[in-house]
């Protein structure tokens, strides 16, 4: 892995080379990573994989014409060639009258807990041992459970960003993870795949908790029951609402979509757009968050941004380009696709505030309803209209206050803004996913179509 100081040196070299070559503004982001992972296939370790590499993305402007380039070779010769490609692109592209400036220097806050020496020193044998332990624990967690895929991994990375306005920052980070995807055969076929994971910035992974959750879900999946079409009360687990929101609500809070007329809630700041029970924050500095970092991919400090507060829409998410165009300030949400050169707007860790009661208490009050653990097809939603039509899978039937079994082929459809207004309870215990932290929520009057 290339050290922060060396990456900063390369970035500075890119800025000076770009300016000398005729660019009027230049920025560079360099990232170096070392990833180690083990794969499980059919309850055995199949492979140990290592990915070592450096990625350098360059974006520059000649006046208001933009060009970008990428290289995976961290040498002065290579980045000089890449600057040449970006200059050539900028010379022939069209002018962007709306472009104002790259980010200006700002102060960064110190964020603790981004780096762990233990992760950085992990060797393949240790990762194999961790995965071996996972296989043993899963094997005895539930009769008939088959560990289809999963494993563990660690990753360390360094990154540096500089631009011609004087922004210069670097940081390093580590993550570790465990993942278990399991199922069981049933009399009529197979259960759906149940997936759970744990992601940390240190090595304090909760294997026991993860294995228990998978076993509990697979146990319920073994009992197949039939659902009933109609409007019903539905509990959404974060694994279900994260992708559903991700393809409907979240695109509508992205500043670029707001500016381009692609957001249905573009003119709703200050208006109530959901049940007052819902408070949603994008928190780029939350301790332990997988996406938590000092700066975004344009060197802008990460921050905490209130999106929905007690049902009222408070803010959208911005990067520098769109914030400049719309006369607001970047919220530190720029994400750069290193190889493609596209800088767009992406949330960090989305946090939903907890409610008062445990989900078990809410379930006891439901006579007939559904608990959706995960979904199929969230990516086929219409982000502009907010319409979605997905399959809840695994999905469980609740009758007389109890979860009684899994339903195959349960369709859930509607419009995301109707769902937001139909939230009647948010559970107490937050569940941590890769980019979401939030409890289950309960929504009423949700369209359910059950397979006949």
């Amino acid at each position, binding site marked *: 892995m290339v050290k922060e100081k060396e990456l900063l040196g390369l970035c500075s070299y890119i800025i000076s080379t770009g300016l000398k070559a005729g660019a009027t503004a230049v920025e560079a982001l360099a990232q170096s990573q070392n990833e180690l992972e083990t794969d499980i296939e059919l309850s055995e370790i199949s492979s140990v994989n*290592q990915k070592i590499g450096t990625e350098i993305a360059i974006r520059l402007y000649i006046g208001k014409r933009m060009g970008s380039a990428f290289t995976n070779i961290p040498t002065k010769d290579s980045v000089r060639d890449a600057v040449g490609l970006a200059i050539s*692109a900028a010379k022939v592209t069209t002018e962007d009258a709306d472009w104002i400036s790259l980010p200006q220097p700002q102060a960064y806050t110190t964020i603790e807990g981004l780096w762990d020496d233990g992760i950085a020193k992990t060797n393949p044998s240790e990762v194999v041992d961790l995965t071996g332990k996972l296989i043993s624990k899963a094997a005895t967690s539930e009769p008939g459970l088959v560990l289809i895929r999963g494993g563990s991994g660690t990753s360390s990375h360094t990154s540096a960003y500089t631009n011609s306005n004087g922004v210069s920052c670097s940081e390093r980070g580590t993550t570790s993870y465990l993942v278990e995807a399991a199922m069981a055969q049933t009399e009529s076929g197979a259960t759906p795949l149940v997936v759970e994971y744990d992601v940390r910035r240190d090595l304090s992974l909760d294997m026991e908790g993860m294995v228990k959750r998978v076993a509990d879900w697979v146990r319920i999946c073994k009992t197949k029951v039939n659902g009933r079409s109609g409007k019903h009360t539905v509990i959404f687990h974060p694994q279900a609402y994260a992708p559903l929101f991700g393809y409907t609500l979240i695109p509508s809070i992205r500043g670029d979509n707001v500016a381009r007329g692609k957001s249905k809630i573009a003119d709703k700041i200050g208006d109530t757009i959901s049940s007052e029970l819902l408070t949603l924050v994008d928190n780029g500095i939350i301790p332990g968050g997988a996406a938590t970092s000092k700066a975004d991919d344009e060197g802008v400090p990460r921050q905490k941004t209130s999106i929905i507060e007690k049902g009222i829409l408070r803010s959208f998410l911005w990067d520098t380009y769109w914030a400049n165009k719309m006369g607001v300030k970047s919220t530190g949400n720029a994400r750069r696709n290193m190889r493609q050169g596209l800088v767009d707007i992406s949330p960090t860790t989305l946090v939903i505030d907890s409610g008062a009661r445990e989900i078990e208490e809410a379930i006891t009050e439901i006579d007939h309803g559904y608990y959706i653990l995960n979904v199929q097809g969230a990516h086929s939603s219409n982000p502009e209209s907010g319409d979605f039509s*997905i399959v809840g899978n695994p999905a469980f039937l609740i009758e007389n206050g109890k979860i009684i079994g899994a339903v195959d*082929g349960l369709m859930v459809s509607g419009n995301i803004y109707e769902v937001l207004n139909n939230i009647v309870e948010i559970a107490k215990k937050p569940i941590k996913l890769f980019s979401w932290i939030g409890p289950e929520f309960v929504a009423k009057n949700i369209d359910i179509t059950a397979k006949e």
Partner: protein
Amino acid sequence: MLDILEHAIDKGRNLGATYIEIRGESGFVEYIQMEDSRVAALTQRLERGVAIRALADGAWGFVTTGNLELLDKGVSDAVAMAKAAARSRKEPIKLAEVRAYEDVIKNKPKRDPRHVPIEEKIEYMNQMTKTIRDYDPRVTAVTIKVRTSSGTKYLVTSEGAKIQSPTLLVWTLPWASGKDGIRLSAARYEDATTDEGWEFFERIASPEVIGTAVAKRLKQQLDGVAAKSGVFPCVCGPRVIGTLAHEALGHLAEADITMNSSFAGKLGQVVASEGVSMTDNGIDMGRVGVSKYDDEGVPASRVEIIKDSVLTELLTNREYAAKINHRTTGNARAESYLFPPIIRMRSTIFELGEHSREEVFEGIKFGYYCTDFRGGQAQTNASFQVGIQEAYEIVNGELGRPVTDLSISGIATDSLYKIEAVSKEPFPYDVGRCGKGQEAFVSSGGPDIRFGAGGITFGGKS
């Protein structure tokens, strides 16, 4: 590059691996994104890297790096990691025996995308933007993505395989948004070739053809009526039935998934209505996703997944072919040197049937004709979902009003028995990107196929 890779294999021979495979890659890759006529990204890059996979003591070690100077170290690291992984294995991984091929494959794009001027590419996107905007005054935003690549990939194995083949991609995806009153909607379209150069955008996927395709779908989204929820008879057109072949059945026939899916143990059994055949055709050269060899050096083949309603064959790589005693089908594919090869589809289709178009629609009092998709997803319990962005009501066997977004779902093992008619009319193929931890370009298709009530569930408005 072949010599460098061969040399590294030779140096790794005494490290104790039973098999070493090195895949190298070098080439030109480009991405352009245009948003409302503004160039939002324009990146050209020269990408180079290697993937090293070693089988030692019955387990895999895999190393990927962009730094060719680390090649020898990568080989020894891959062997060491395989040995570390092997300590825990009860059953060692074995590979099916295959012939080691030496081959150099050439392609002949008329216009290699790396030599097409950027100005021409931007003009293509500008023209498409104009076509979409001119189609309907309600269009509010247009995003166009273009990806091209042109390069060479190399495969060398310790068993003597030595294959050099071209990598080529010319791809576009427009996304159009529109507004009518307070109603917002959007539509997408996608087309690509892995066989032709930029001439594909002149000859077939012109800005007018692709722009009109997406604008027409957006118009229907804005004009359409909501679909009903429930269970209806329906006809799936080529773009949807192809996606269904891929999502509902193709994934279940991937040997690494089949072993525990609802298809487990059903080889040789009837799994569909009479007259239903489905194929993953790895030798239909020119189709997106099809290549002469897979990324383990195994020749691609035509896999008859369902033949005359019987589950006949599965898709394999060398590891799973040995594990389940099945022939190697040449379906091991890797997105790039950053990933190991895994079992993937290529060109997955339902075969033609015997019914005329009239017979397929005949007698449907009320149902839907689903003609274009917006993504789909499969699960191990055979549950499939396909998002539909273009569909029409069928009323008394005739096509009626267009309907807005909906999705269809079913349990594949049940739905296949509900097929009532398969058209004999030839069909166009569509192009998709399949995600199974890594991206693979695939094609799919099939004739109009009719499902009786109960085969497909519609998630519309109740």
